[in-house]
């Protein structure tokens, strides 16, 4: 894969389209096992991302992701704000000054996973967005060259796998066993992020 700054902007715009469309669904998932504000928070934040990115020129992918990170941090709210903000900030730092190819992207996702674990004080298997980001990194680091479809497939199966997990972090943790059978909202929104990336890589 290769990703340039224009594509990175398109990636975020496509992510926003999906989040806007699925905002009610995300909030519904969050009402089941959380506090019900994930859809509305993400919709507000990513709309701000699209508005900000559309009005600026960017020299490299890192700049796009950095702007995305700071916008998310101040506009998303809820737990998703600091978590997504940290993920994009780490990806921006890792891609600074380099072309984004398969290897760089794998490193970017790795840094994002580390950031998410540190910020959320969480690990894999705790029914959080880490359960989409971390398996994705595991798969990416084993392949030297991959495309959008592969990214989408892994993100999708990882998202589905959160259904059977028991939450031990966040509001859902209070529900323990009852959180089983529900998809984790943060994993679903993470899937939209990677589905949008996949489409950007496939269609430009």
């Amino acid at each position, binding site marked *: 894969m290769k990703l340039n700054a224009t594509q990175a902007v398109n990636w975020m715009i496509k992510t926003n389209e999906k989040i806007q469309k699925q905002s009610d669904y995300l909030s519904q998932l969050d009402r089941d096992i959380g506090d019900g*504000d994930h859809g509305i*928070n993400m919709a507000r934040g990513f709309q701000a991302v699209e508005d900000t990115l559309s009005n600026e020129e960017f020299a490299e992918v890192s700049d796009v992701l950095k702007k995305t990170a700071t916008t998310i*941090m*101040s506009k998303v*709210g*809820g*737990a998703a*704000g*600091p*978590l997504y*903000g*940290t993920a994009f900030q780490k990806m921006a730092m890792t891609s600074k000054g380099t072309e984004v190819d398969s290897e760089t992207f794998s490193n970017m996702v790795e840094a994002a996973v580390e950031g998410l674990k540190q*910020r*959320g004080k969480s690990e894999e298997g705790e029914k959080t967005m880490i359960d989409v980001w971390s398996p994705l990194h595991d798969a990416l680091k084993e392949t030297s060259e991959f495309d959008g479809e592969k990214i989408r497939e892994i993100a999708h199966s990882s998202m589905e796998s959160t259904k059977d997990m028991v939450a031990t972090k*966040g*509001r859902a943790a209070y529900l323990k066993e009852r959180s089983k059978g529900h998809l984790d909202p943060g994993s679903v929104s993470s899937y939209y992020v990677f589905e949008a990336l996949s489409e950007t890589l496939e269609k430009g």
Partner: protein
Amino acid sequence: MAQVGIILVSHSEKLTEGIQSLLEEVVGDVSVQTAGGNEEGQIGTSLDKIQNAMKNVGEAGALVFYDLGSAQMNAEMAIEMLELEHVHLSDAPIVEGAYLAAVEASVGKSVNDIRESLKNEFGKE
């Protein structure tokens, strides 16, 4: 010597205002900054609000108390972004912890002494 400040970060504006007036009433001479609710004043947290509350910390430093998950994450992020070395996040319960810290700050204890007291009282800094 300048006093250690107290910063309250909560999902609710009313909660931070309530604790602030409690501390000011009971303890008196103490600086309490608040960042409650999101930007519209509704339930939530706002990184910008938290950063604002941290802006006027004096050289004695400050202790930050939070209520729930995202308040903690946003407060951590604000401290990192502003590179505030003498501002510390406390994991103590927001009301009891802030009360203890306010009492000690009002008698001029240092930020590290107060962290030690919090640790002794609540088992966490």
